[in-house]
């Protein structure tokens, strides 16, 4: 056999089928306002927002090795920026979401310069301190309701759409779009040169560094981009809630603990993991939600067991069993069968 008998490819039959299925699913989801009830659409909207948050956290922790327990800093920041920009700046809510992302990136720069001095697990707690600083600072801003928070004025809510169903459809589509945009950005980013560098860092930081990859810069870029997108998701979350308070905006349980469980259970360091994790998380929540604290304890225990027994999560189990990959990212060597016949 000579080298011309082989070729290297990223696609496979499975990824092609996945593209078709994904496209069909997306069309069905876009049409949800025509087939789903009000409650279902609310639930799905929330699911998409969690999917987006989980995919972003996974990009940071799973690929860049930046384990943050303080992403609620950016969720809350985005939410507060939405309120400030629409109430005091007179900006249209959708425009405010975009600006919130830009501001999130700007504030993330000095934060990153500070907390990147902390290594590993201490970095994680450092991110938590930052989130606390954000929470306590916004609680001091009396114009935004101080510690008790404030509501979005009716006029601003109306500016989205006149009718209630119109607003519900719009916020559903925005949530769906955010999940699709985040997953697509992560996917296409990982296929670029920088994405390859990131995958190399994930697999072995020392080896990646010795190949000339600027590890600090790569991680820095990932942190800033994640912060920007997380702030946009945060703005969207509080556009749906219509009410914000420091404790809700910077809740470590809601915006970080759940997200971490989703990623760990689904499979960290893969694009598919957060998707499976989100579906499972919502399925668990819908069946166990009445149990309150028991539900959270079960979630914690499941995450611990998965981390100890199957660190690659459910998707990792599936992938190693069936050699599957839905998103074409890794390279495979294929023997060119057509040439063998010659």
């Amino acid at each position: 056999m000579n080298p011309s008998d082989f070729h290297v490819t990223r696609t496979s039959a499975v990824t092609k089928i996945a593209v078709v299925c994904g496209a069909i699913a997306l069309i069905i989801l876009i049409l949800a306002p025509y087939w789903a009830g009000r409650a279902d659409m609310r639930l799905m909207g929330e699911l998409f927002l969690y999917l987006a948050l989980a995919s972003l956290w996974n990009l940071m922790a799973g690929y860049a090795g930046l384990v943050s327990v303080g992403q609620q800093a950016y969720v809350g920041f985005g939410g507060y920026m939405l309120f400030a920009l629409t109430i005091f700046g007179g900006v249209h809510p959708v425009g405010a979401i975009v600006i919130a992302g830009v501001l999130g990136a700007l504030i993330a720069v000095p934060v990153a310069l500070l907390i990147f001095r902390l290594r590993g697990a201490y970095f994680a707690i450092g991110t938590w301190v930052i989130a606390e600083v954000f929470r306590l600072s916004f609680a001091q801003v009396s114009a935004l309701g101080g510690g008790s928070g404030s509501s979005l004025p009716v006029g601003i809510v109306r500016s989205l759409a006149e009718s209630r169903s119109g607003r519900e459809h719009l916020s559903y589509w925005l949530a769906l779009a955010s999940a699709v945009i985040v997953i697509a950005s992560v996917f296409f980013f990982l296929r670029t040169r920088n994405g390859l560098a990131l995958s190399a860092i994930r697999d072995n930081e020392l080896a990646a560094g010795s190949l000339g990859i600027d590890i600090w810069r790569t991680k820095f870029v990932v942190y800033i981009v994640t912060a920007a997108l997380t702030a946009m998701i945060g703005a969207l979350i509080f556009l749906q809630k219509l009410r914000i308070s420091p404790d809700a905006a910077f809740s470590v349980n809601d915006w970080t603990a759940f997200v971490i469980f989703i990623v760990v259970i689904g499979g960290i360091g893969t694009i598919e993991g957060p998707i499976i994790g989100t579906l499972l998380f919502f399925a668990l929540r819908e069946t166990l939600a009445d149990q309150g604290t028991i539900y959270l304890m079960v979630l914690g225990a499941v995450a611990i067991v998965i981390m100890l027994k199957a660190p690659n999560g459910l998707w990792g189990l599936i992938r190693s069993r069936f050699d599957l990959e839905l998103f074409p990212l890794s390279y495979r060597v294929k023997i060119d069968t057509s040439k063998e016949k010659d």
Partner: protein
Amino acid sequence: MEWLNAVVQGTLLGGLYALFAAGLSLIFGVMRLVNIAHGDLIVLGAYLGLTVTIILGLHPLLALVIVVPAMALIGYVLQRGILNHTLGKDILPPLLVTFGLSVIIQNALLETYSADPQKMNAGALETASLSAGGLSVGILPLLTFGIAIAVIASLQWVFYRTALGRAFRATSDNQEIAQLMGLNRRHIFGLAMALALGVTAIAGIMLGIRTSFDPSIGGGRLIFGFEAVIIGGLGNLWGTLVGGVILGVAQTIGAKIDPGWQLLAGHITFLVILAFKPNGLFPRINE
């Protein structure tokens, strides 16, 4: 005089923060583990203390006799049953497993004791105070500070003067060689966690006598302990005490300026020190 008073109160508050931090520092020193559930374990210590004082009618300080060994036992079992399986090159498993533990402990406390704030009754000790030169100092904060010094001095003694401490330092330096020399690192780590949670029990009870507590406050206590450790410099126990004092003073002075600024002032002081002295004031571990 008011400012001097704030500094004195802050210094004594720093003793409590040093108690929060000592366990974290010890665990990191021996096995490079950062325990996210540390704050919730402090709160667990406070609740165990509360239970013992109510059931046996003991004074909270006497409850230490029961709670410290109980927490030490929990620590040993936790380490050998779960945490030892997470240690390795990858930092993700210990971080996420202790994060899961934190959520479990918090919700188990919520389920058992409800969300109502609780407080331990220490009788006259709570209000007793000494006055000198216009300053009034509570006996309880003074006692807490004294206990913090005693705890750190004993940890220091264990580390540098006993066979157990030698085993801790050996495993910390090189796990494989320590293993070859006949030390069972799983057991050593178990003992280190037992010791750390023993200290955590003291921290929890002093916290529970000083202020009211509820299951949700663990995260905040973890952050205070963590800040004290980083300000003082990794791996330096006396540095941790200094870190706790700096944090405590920053908070009381912040509160003096504006009550809403108490916690913020502490966090900002921490971030400023991180910006100018990233390894803390007195680092001992170079990584």
